[in-house]
């Protein structure tokens, strides 16, 4: 199977199971409402019945923002003019790149807790999503969905913890090392112009993204393997995933980057469309909110398509005996008691 046909099949499956995407959107909205409602009252209170309301409806009142910033603490302190337009998306990329994602010193506690809960809940839901994608012809029911959620939760939870640990190790140890390695290079160390250190910094960003995506892909396949082959031992799933990726390096990477490319298109579309509306009437506030929700739907759709198309690739690739041998050898030290799944669910 080729990467593109996997993508085609996968996106077909996700689109057929669009109910899941909508369900995930609702979950996302429920989570954000936990803080968005207090945020509404915080802003309402801060604007008060002053002229700031008028100014903030027409544009952005930097004077008010200075006062607000000086007064608020906690989750409301995450409000900044940079949440406008593309900033809402870029800020988050910066958080993940700078290693601030799990850092209590740079993210208000309530938001961090909400994020961690979302992560946990996401781990729980992944079982249901992958279970549904694994049997695309089975009619969707919440019964089956939550059964799968429960079935895989502990396994996925451990996979998630390992994934987060990988990220933390990357941020805590690998990047500081890479940083000092780069800065001790003569080119960077003795630069009299910004250009060279700048380019090295971007190279660092690039390396980070590649590794991060690799982590994403590795743990996607580990989950897929757990579901498809009904694996009980996540270490086995993890190493089989590693083995599969390297044996089919071209296919796995090209599929992953096709999907990333689709994500970039979504961002570009959003960046183009969002500024077309000035949000100073209730109607336009509604339209922009709608556009934003469409973007989030596309993002969730893409997240699901990562699963479904990688699963299709995994299922569709014919593994030759030599390749299987190679994969098994990767897993060997961990595979003492592991048997392939008792029954493949249909």
């Amino acid at each position, binding site marked *: 199977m080729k990467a593109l046909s996997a993508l085609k099949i996968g996106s077909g499956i996700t689109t057929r199971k669009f109910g899941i995407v909508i369900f995930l959107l609702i979950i*996302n909205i429920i989570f*954000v409402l936990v*803080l968005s409602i207090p*945020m509404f009252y915080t*802003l*309402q209170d801060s*604007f*008060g*019945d002053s002229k*700031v*309301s*008028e100014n*903030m409806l027409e544009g*952005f009142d*930097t*004077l*008010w923002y*200075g*006062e607000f910033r000086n007064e608020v603490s906690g989750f409301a302190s995450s*409000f900044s*003019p*940079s*949440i*406008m337009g*593309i*900033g*809402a998306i*870029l800020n*988050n990329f*910066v*958080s*993940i*790149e700078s290693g601030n994602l799990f850092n209590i010193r740079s993210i208000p506690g309530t*938001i961090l807790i909400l*994020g961690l809960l*979302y*992560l946990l809940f996401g*781990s729980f839901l992944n079982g249901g999503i992958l279970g549904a994608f694994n049997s695309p012809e089975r009619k969707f029911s919440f019964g089956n969905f939550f059964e799968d959620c429960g079935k895989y939760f502990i396994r*996925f939870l451990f996979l998630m913890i390992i*994934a*987060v640990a990988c*990220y933390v190790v990357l941020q805590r140890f690998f990047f500081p090392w890479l940083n000092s390695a780069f800065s001790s290079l003569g080119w960077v160390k*003795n630069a*009299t*112009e*910004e*250009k060279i250190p700048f380019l090295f910094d971007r190279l660092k*960003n690039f390396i980070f993204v590649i590794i991060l995506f690799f982590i*994403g892909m590795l*743990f996607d396949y580990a989950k897929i393997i757990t579901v498809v082959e009904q694996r009980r031992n996540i270490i086995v799933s993890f190493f089989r995933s590693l083995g599969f990726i390297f044996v089919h390096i071209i296919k796995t990477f090209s599929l992953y980057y096709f999907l990333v490319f689709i994500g970039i298109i979504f961002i570009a579309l959003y960046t183009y469309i969002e500024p077309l509306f000035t*949000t*100073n009437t*209730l109607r336009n*506030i509604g339209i*922009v*909110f709608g556009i*934003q929700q469409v973007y*989030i739907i596309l*993002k*969730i759709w893409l997240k699901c398509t990562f699963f479904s198309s990688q699963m299709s690739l995994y299922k569709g690739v014919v593994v030759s005996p030599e390749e299987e041998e190679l994969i098994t050898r990767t897993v060997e030290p961990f595979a003492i008691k592991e048997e392939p799944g008792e029954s493949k669910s249909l």
Partner: protein
Amino acid sequence: MRLKFVFLFLIMTTFLYPKLLHGQPPVCEHIANYKMDVELFPEKKTVEGSEMLTWLNDSYYYVDELYFHLYMNAFKNNKSSMMRERGRPLKKDIKPIELGYCDIISMKVLESDYMEEADITATIEFVQPDDDNKDDQTVIRVKLPRVVPPNGEIQLVIDFVTKLPRTIRRSGYYQDYFFMAQWFPKIGVFWDGRWNCHQYHARSEFFADYGIYDVNITVPSDYIVGATGEKRTAIENPNGTITYNFFQESVHDFAWTACEDYIEVFDECPLPSGGVDITLLIMPEHEKQSERYLTATKHAIKYYSEWYGEYPYSTVTVIDPAYRSEADGMEYPTIFTGRTNWIESPKGVLRPESVTVHEFGHGYWYGLIGNNEFEDAWLDEGFTSFSESEVLETAYGPNLFSLRYFGFPVAFPDVKYEQRFTGLNGYRRIAKQDIMQRNAWEYMTSSSYDVNAYDKPELMLRTLKNYLGKEVFDNIMKTYSLRWWYKHPKPQDFFEVVGEVSGQDMNWFFDQFVYGSDVLDYSIDRISSRLEPDSIGILTKWGRDFVEEETAQEEEEAKIEPDTTLKTEEVEEKEEKEKIYTSEVLVRRLGEVKMPVEIQVNFDNGETINESWDGQYKWKKFIYKKPAKIKSAVVDPEHKYVLDINYTNNSKIVKEDNKAPLKWTSKWMFWLQNFLELFAFFS
């Protein structure tokens, strides 16, 4: 007779003096004149040579000792006052080549009317007038063999070696980049009967007398050199070096830079009595931003000349310093450094413009008006920040909010920072931490220095401008500027000009802001309108009249047939118009600072009432009886008092809807949705 004289004098000072000054450029008295011959040795990281100092005692005192700054000694070890005050200590493994110092090889007094020739090197001793830190070697005192009488002039020849540090506090070397600032033995200022010669502090700048600088600089011939003043000659030497002569009168410092990488760009700015030659020395990677530097410089020259007196020097040299040179923006007479990034800021984001305009501005408030930056930092930085914003506002408009994502700048066109509020965020945060009038190195923190030297004085000047009116204020600034060119004013001198030009005693203003840390905050506490109730009870002169009236009225009403038809809309409208409302506006003074304020009250029939309040007591209530309801009220509606630490509470409107919080919550919500999805990446 005497009274007449005083009257005449007053007229002179008020009307004629400023006019005379506006017409003719002020004259500079040259007190400290330097003739120098120095050479840069890039390998050794040293500048070696000698200076001949001609010093004039322009005081009424006899002087028998001299004080000198050896600023470079601040970088000699980690015990200097600079290093102790600075947040970042020297790194433990620092190499000797990275340290800086200034060694005097010899100091001689030449023979003159009141002096015999003598070598006074042995009398040099380090003194610490500010903090008794015996390890600090940034100030020396030398004994003279004889006293210098008032108006006496002496000459000294000083041989010295300046070892440049790895760039620190803007000065030193980095690779083949060299910046020589505060680099030579420099005499202090004999002022008010004593030597004013402060140590080099982490948070303070400088103070010096005016003079003529005639400096020969020798460097390897592939180095491009920029310096204070006019480049008069360039002579190639047989040993592969080149000697430049730079000359400038009427300045109080001399700085220079040398680097192989600079690209030289020339331009000029025409002025009524000639023009200014602009030299830009720019790093190759920034070459395409030359135009931005030059345009900003020309704007600055133009507006400063218009507003504060025509730029009197023939040159200005703009330096785009090397990366990692710790240079950023800094001012020296007729030469200054700017700053920019390799990836240029988008239009509307004023980098490098703002720093360029700022540093050029110092050429006035530090260069031409020689105030004591150690003791009155705000007279320099505050005035410079104020004028910077005025020039930027006039030439460019507001500055756009921008962020750099992965090194690439993104501007937010909807988020505009108006120049006139520059500094307010910083000031508001720690408004009460210090008093503005204080020695620069004695503020509590470096942010407090920033707030009290830059932000607060800028906002104070703008508040004063709005209070007195543009015309009066502009006249104040020009008069103050020209009156104090080439002199050493103190804050009191500025206050006197304010009083004199405005014709008002403004001490109450300066007492609150310059010598106090109180804040200004007026607010509209509430607005309300309620229907004037129907009269109940007795309103007649005598109670008994009321009873009689009442009976008569009842009889009258009984005769009229009751109206059974429904009220038409017209009637209702008419009745609504006839309704009388009692409206109240409660204005409060929340800060301790007292200033007269204006209040604007708007009614729903379109009527606007402007009120004034002396702002003295803690609150004031305005009551209106009108056939209209109150719609909004604003205290300081034109936002004249930019020092007001909370402007949100300056207005109240009758609330219409929640569109604004809804709009911004939905934007924030989208950000949070994305943020959570980011977490989900690991699930």
